[in-house]
């Protein structure tokens, strides 16, 4: 996987930039369109991403509204409770997602968490919205394979920061290889000196808790700065030094 060019809608993707694995069919992801016989053109503005190993190509779009898709970890705000589920807001001005009362680890009717209006929950999307059927997305705080929370659940304390969707995606790349591509080192550098908890929501939110207001703020601000100014690795290194010195 590598970043290459920025494409505009209608731009043709040069053949040499597409992966050409003779054994597999080329699979194209969001933002690309296949015009038979062999033209691939962009449908949205962004950077072209290719995975030579899987013979895949897609567009990275940093902007717009978050669209729920299955298994995405997101940070939601509880806005109320009805019957058997909490109503949660994924992004402002969109309809609510349902988080069933029993979809928490070890939750029974008696032990389920009591979440007040405005509480934050780190959850995963179980089923995305089906607009044609008028079904809102459903969330869960349990990993279906293990039955455990795996870090999901209500977020207590801390602070929420708004980040771009691209940043959220980069922060969520955890495998070693992907991490190198993501080029985010600020969290690691800060984490070497300070202890803090972070939760990244694919919907463009970052939750930070360092048990200390100043440090929480410093971590949140550092990430937002990297995000807004598009700092490269060296600049992040310098920023981390600066932040650690001040805090």
């Amino acid at each position: 996987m590598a970043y290459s060019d920025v494409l505009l809608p209608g731009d043709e993707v040069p053949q040499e930039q597409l992966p050409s694995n003779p054994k597999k069919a080329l699979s194209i992801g969001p933002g690309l369109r296949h015009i038979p016989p062999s033209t691939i053109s962009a449908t949205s503005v962004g950077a072209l991403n290719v995975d030579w190993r899987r013979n895949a190509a897609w567009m990275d779009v940093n902007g717009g509204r978050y669209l729920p898709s299955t298994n995405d970890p997101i940070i939601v705000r509880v806005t109320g409770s009805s019957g058997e589920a909490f109503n949660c807001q994924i992004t402002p001005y969109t309809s609510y997602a349902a988080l069933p009362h029993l979809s928490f680890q070890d939750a029974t009717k008696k032990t389920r968490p009591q979440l007040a209006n405005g509480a934050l929950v780190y959850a995963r999307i179980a089923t995305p919205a089906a607009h044609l059927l008028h079904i809102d997305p459903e969330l869960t705080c349990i990993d279906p394979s293990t039955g455990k929370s795996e870090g999901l659940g209500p977020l207590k304390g801390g602070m929420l920061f708004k980040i771009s969707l691209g940043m959220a995606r980069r922060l969520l790349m955890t495998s070693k290889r992907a991490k190198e591509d993501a080029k985010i080192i600020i969290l690691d550098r800060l984490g070497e000196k300070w202890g803090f908890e972070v939760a990244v929501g694919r919907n463009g939110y970052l939750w930070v808790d360092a048990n200390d207001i100043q440090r929480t703020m410093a971590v949140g601000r550092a990430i937002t700065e990297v995000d807004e100014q598009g700092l490269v690795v060296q600049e992040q290194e310098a920023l981390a030094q600066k932040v650690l010195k001040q805090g």
Partner: protein
Amino acid sequence: MPLEPKISVNEREFLLDALRQNLRLSGRKLDALRPLSITFDPDDYGVTEVQLGKTRIRAHTQTTITNPPPSRPFEGTLTITAELSPLTAPHFELARPSDTEALLSRLLEKSIRRSGALPVESLCLLAGDKCFNLRVTVHVLAHDGGLPTAAFVAVLASLMTSRVPATEVRGGEVQVFTAEEREGVRLQLVHVPIAVGVSVFDGGAIGVVDADGMEEQAREGEVVVVGNEVGEICGVTKWGGVDVGAVELVGMVEEARKQCEGVVKWLKGKVEEEEKRRAKRDHAGERSAENQR
């Protein structure tokens, strides 16, 4: 109707805890305004755009000639209207004016008109017959708190840089000149009122100047102070909210009023700069030997 998004409990509590330690998320001090900037339309008079942090407001002054109201034959009219449309945020609708819009319009109108910043008598052309009608429209382009401050700066800057057409009264007839015939006349403002808001937190114990959008959602009350450059108060509004001790309240008002003075000074400087730039540009043509033929 999309509802205004609210902030979470975590954010609210964090903000409050931080304020108790004199910290703000933006890194500002509790009594600091966000950076203000202003741009003037280079081609038009009285069109300004003000940016306060992420809040952006555009104001536009239009002048027409009408008949004065029969009850006030010696006065012109000045109306100021604020508009918050879906381009500010999706929860503002055009068809249904929001509370924010009504309160902002009211605040602007009462503080600028009732404090007599622009003497409406000067807008009278012919008693009982002709007068200028000034109409200032305020468009909120982006809302991240501090609407009063940004709106006052925009409106006042717009009034200070706008021109009314030159006129002459001859034998009971008013002759109006176009901008080509005669240069327009600058409005004479008596004083410059500017609003600064102090948001109240923690049961009235903490006062924070110029709250941003998130702080506005978390606050428990607000005191909007309108002050001018000569140490006067032109209006104070505390529409309920948490109760504040009288002594503390006087302190907050004084604090905000001092900030107002600073903003007026800055604004006057900016307007003078702009007027000088304009004068230079307008007269550059006259001085040059070349012409268009």
